[in-house]
C-alpha cells in the first residue's frame, strides 16, 4: 500500500520519541558541565611530563633531555634544550635534565608518538581537555612548569599503565643498586688484594656514574 513505508517510519520515530522519556538506551545525553563523562583509561589529549613527587616537580622530572621525542614528534611541537649540568634522576644516576621543555599544544596532534618512543617513561598523555583560552601565545605554549605533573596524577588517570611503569622503574632501580653494590664489592676485593685499603674508602666509593649507559646517546640521525 502506498504510504505504508512512511507510516512504518513514523512508527520508528514515535517509538524513539516515547522511548526518550524512559528508556535508558535512548537517553543518551551527557549533561556535560555538571556531569563529566567518564573518560576511558586510554584516553589521551596532550602530553605532560612526569615528576616523581609533587613538592619538587622541577627537581624530580623523569625527563633526561635526550630529545628523542623532539625528533620523532610528527608535527614538531616539542622544543627541548639540554641543561649544562647534571643531577641525579629517579634511579640515582646523574643525568642531564631539560633546561627548556616547551610544547606548543596549539600544534600538537595528540598522536602519542612521543610517549611511545620515550625510553624513560618521562612523558605521558594527559586527559585534561578543558583548556580553551582567549590567547594562544600565552595560553597554549606550555613550558616545563606547566607540563610537570606528579606521578600520583599519572596513577590517577592511567592506573594500569602507571603501575606497570612503577614496577619496571623499581626493578631497574633495584638492579642498578645491586650492580652498584656488586661493583663496590668487586672494587673492595680488588683493593684488598694487593694492599689492605681502608674499608671506609671502599664502602663510600660509588660506582662511576654512567649517565649514558642506557640513555641512547644519539638517536639515529633523522
Amino acid at each position, binding site marked *: 500500500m502506498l504510504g505504508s513505508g512512511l507510516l512504518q517510519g513514523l512508527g520508528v520515530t514515535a517509538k524513539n520519541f516515547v522511548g526518550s522519556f524512559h528508556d535508558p538506551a535512548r537517553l543518551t545525553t551527557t549533561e556535560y558541565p555538571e556531569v563529566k563523562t567518564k573518560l576511558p583509561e586510554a584516553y589521551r589529549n596532550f602530553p605532560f611530563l612526569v615528576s616523581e613527587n609533587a613538592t619538587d616537580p622541577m627537581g624530580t622530572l623523569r625527563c633526561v633531555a635526550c630529545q628523542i621525542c*623532539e*625528533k620523532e614528534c610528527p608535527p*614538531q*611541537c*616539542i*622544543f627541548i634544550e639540554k641543561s649544562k649540568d647534571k643531577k641525579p634522576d629517579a634511579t640515582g644516576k646523574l643525568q642531564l635534565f631539560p633546561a627548556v621543555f*616547551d*610544547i*606548543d599544544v596549539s*600544534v600538537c596532534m595528540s598522536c602519542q608518538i612521543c610517549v611511545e618512543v620515550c625510553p624513560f617513561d618521562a612523558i605521558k598523555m594527559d586527559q585534561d581537555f578543558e583548556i580553551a583560552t582567549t590567547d594562544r*601565545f600565552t595560553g597554549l*605554549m606550555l613550558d616545563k612548569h606547566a607540563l610537570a605533573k606528579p606521578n600520583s596524577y599519572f596513577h590517577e588517570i592511567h592506573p594500569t599503565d602507571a603501575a606497570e611503569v612503577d614496577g619496571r622503574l623499581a626493578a631497574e632501580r633495584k638492579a642498578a643498586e645491586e650492580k652498584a653494590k656488586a661493583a663496590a664489592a668487586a672494587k673492595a676485593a680488588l683493593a684488598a688484594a694487593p694492599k689492605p685499603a681502608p674499608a671506609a674508602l671502599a664502602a663510600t666509593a660509588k660506582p662511576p656514574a654512567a649517565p649514558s649507559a642506557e640513555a641512547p646517546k644519539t638517536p639515529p640521525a*633523522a
Partner: protein
Amino acid sequence: MESAEQIRDRLLAQFPGAEISVVTNPGVAAQHSLLLGAAHARAIAEFLRDDANLKLDQCSNVTGIDWPEKEIIETTKSTVPDPAGGPAKVVELKTKRIQPGCLEVVYHLYSIALRHGPVVLRLRTGNRTDQSTVPSLTPVWRACEFQEREVFDLYGVVFEGHPDLRRILMWDAFKDHPMRRDYVEPDDYEWEPTPHGAVLEKAKAHYPAPSVAAVPAAEGAKP
C-alpha cells in the same frame, strides 16, 4: 598474470620500434614496471586495456615523481698489472657524472575483469624544465582525468591530449609546482615557538636582531 618481461616482449612484437624497457624494483614487493617512450605510449595503453590476456581495464592510481638532477660518484675498481712484474695493484677510479633530472608519471593498472594486477607503467619527461610533456592517458582510462590534472598542478608535467588540463588543487594564479623537490615556499615563519632543522633556519630570520648593547657604546652612538 604475465611477468613484466613477458608483457614487454609481447608489446615489442606488437609495436616494433617502440621504446619499452623493464624497470626492476629492488624492494621486497618486486612490483616491476614498464618504462614507455612517449611515441607509442597511448597505443600501448590501449593495447593493454583491450588485450584478451591482460584486460587492464582499471587505471587505479596515477603518481607524479620528481627526480631532480643528481650528482653520482661511481667507484670502479680495476686491477692494474705492475709493469715491474710485481703483484697486480687494485686502483679505484672515481668518476663523477650528473644524472639528468626528469619528471616521472607512474600508472598502476589492474584488471577488474580478470582480477589481476598491478601492471605498472612509467612515463618520463625529457627534463624538468622545457621538455616536460608526456602523452595523456585520459582518453584510454577516464580515471586519469583528475589525477593527471593533479600531477600537472603539483609537478608541472604537461599531458598532451588531456581534455581539460587546468590546475586542480591550487588556485589558477599560482605559479609554482609545490611538490617538486626544489620548491621554495613563501616565508611565514614569524611565530615558530618550537622550531627544528629547516624551520629553525627560516624562523631565525624573524628573531630579534642582536641588541645594540652588544656593540660598544661609543660606536653605537655614532650616526
